[in-house]
């Protein structure tokens, strides 16, 4: 089902855990749908100095978090916001169709963490809406559906 890159990132996920004194935290997903991804960031000189994550979900969610954090570390804030879900899935060498939404969790959670940092530091762009970062499926009916 999963390719080797996905399995390697599931088996040995990179950057898992909490950053106790994180500068920003973002979480997407919920327990109804069965997948949650939470991202912690440390920002230093306009760059993502450290990125960690915790996840509850299928193997694809764990692997996506691992790949996303690996890709995100060292990026500028701007670059972090430009890292999209497709980049993560691509870096993983692809995901089964019914698991694509898992990869969506990872970049979305990163964006939320960045927004959280921006908010805390008073840098949130004017007119920013949370919904822009998507993926806040709220209830059972709203859970992502495979094509």
């Amino acid at each position, binding site marked *: 089902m999963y390719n080797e890159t996905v*399995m390697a990132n599931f088996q040995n996920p990179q950057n898992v855990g909490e950053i106790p004194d994180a500068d920003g935290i973002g979480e997407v997903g919920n327990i109804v749908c069965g997948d949650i991804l939470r991202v912690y960031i440390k920002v230093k000189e306009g760059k993502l100095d450290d990125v960690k994550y915790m996840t509850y979900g299928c193997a694809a969610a764990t692997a996506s978090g691992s790949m996303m954090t690996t890709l995100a570390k060292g990026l500028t804030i701007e670059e972090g916001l430009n890292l999209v879900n497709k980049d993560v899935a691509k870096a993983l060498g692809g995901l089964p169709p019914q698991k694509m939404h898992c990869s969506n969790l990872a970049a979305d959670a990163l964006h939320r963490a960045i927004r959280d940092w921006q908010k805390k530091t008073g840098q949130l762009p004017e007119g920013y809406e949370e919904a822009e970062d998507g993926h806040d499926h709220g209830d059972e009916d709203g859970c*992502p559906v495979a094509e």
Partner: protein
Amino acid sequence: MRKVYLDHAATTPLHPEVLALMCDFMRDTFGNPSSVHSFGREAKKFTQEARQKVADLIGAAPEEIYFTSGGTEADNIAIIGTAMARRKNGNHIITSAIEHHAVLDTFKYLAKNGFEVTLLPVDKYGMVDPDEVAGAIRKETTLVTIMHANNEIGTIQPIAEIGRIVREHGVVFHSDAVQTLTKIPVNVDDLGVGLLSLSAHKIYGPKGIGALYVRKGIRLQPIIHGGGQERKLRSGTENTPGIVGFGKAAEIGGRDMEQESKRVQGLRDKLIRRVLAEIPSVTLNGHPEQRLPNNANFSVAYVEGESLVLSLDLDGIAVSSGSACSSGSLQPSHVLTALGLPHEMMHGSLRMTLGRANSEEDIDYVVESLKGIVTRLRSFSPLAQPVRA
């Protein structure tokens, strides 16, 4: 690496005696049982012997056994066959909310085609209440189908009691005994069923073969039309090696049932005991006593089922989960949903179904492996660790 197969409810390996017989048969006896010549008659003789063995296992007559391509088809023939044949008597059919998809999806199909369907709820252990069955039967009811035991949580239904009620109302009663055959006694008269579905690959027999027991006098409309094999109920050249293998598996399964079920239940009880004692925040799903001897179904809080399944797989352990992720269906299993479990416990379900190959050592290995996996997955689960910052 050690390999431990704990997914016997999904399928089982062929029993070595079944394998040997099938390979001999496939080499020596290839005739079409419908053929008049010696090749055909020889094949027919073997299939009739197998029919007798399957019949013996469930206390039926051989002419009440109709071979099908598996349990799914048996369920479909039983349900569609009865509903269509009795359409003039009514258009209402009854089942439970926790049936196998082979039953539930067939009900959905019939619901789309003018039938009224009732899905009975179950209690938190997955039990159907016989009184609810009685209450649901109407003048127009033509069929009630309740599975003998559930494939996910192992709960065994009070089929004999339900059967009595259904028969009193003159309604056809079907039960899916795919999971109970050779695990607990299955006797068509004791259970009071008119129709019973069986599948060979769950009892160390071959895949692609099953049977429907049809009590003498019950008429069914076929769903596959053609050459009129299986006394016109199921057309298509017979899967003779499958039938022969099924017969052998039935014979062995009946012979060894008591002893093997006891042995497996001992291992299963130990598995449940250790898991519940040694891993925090784990619960057992299904009925504490009225359950299949080989079934354990846990909910592990804070971790998701597919991750558990794949992590165990990396340790050589094969299990399954009713989690949405695992099934690829994006909805947790309808069985766990019907039990009314909290979402978290549905997503973290883990089914371990034991069988012939399992030993004490397997159980020890699995418990140790699971302990480590749960600890590791929980270490980065946001549910286990609320946001601090």
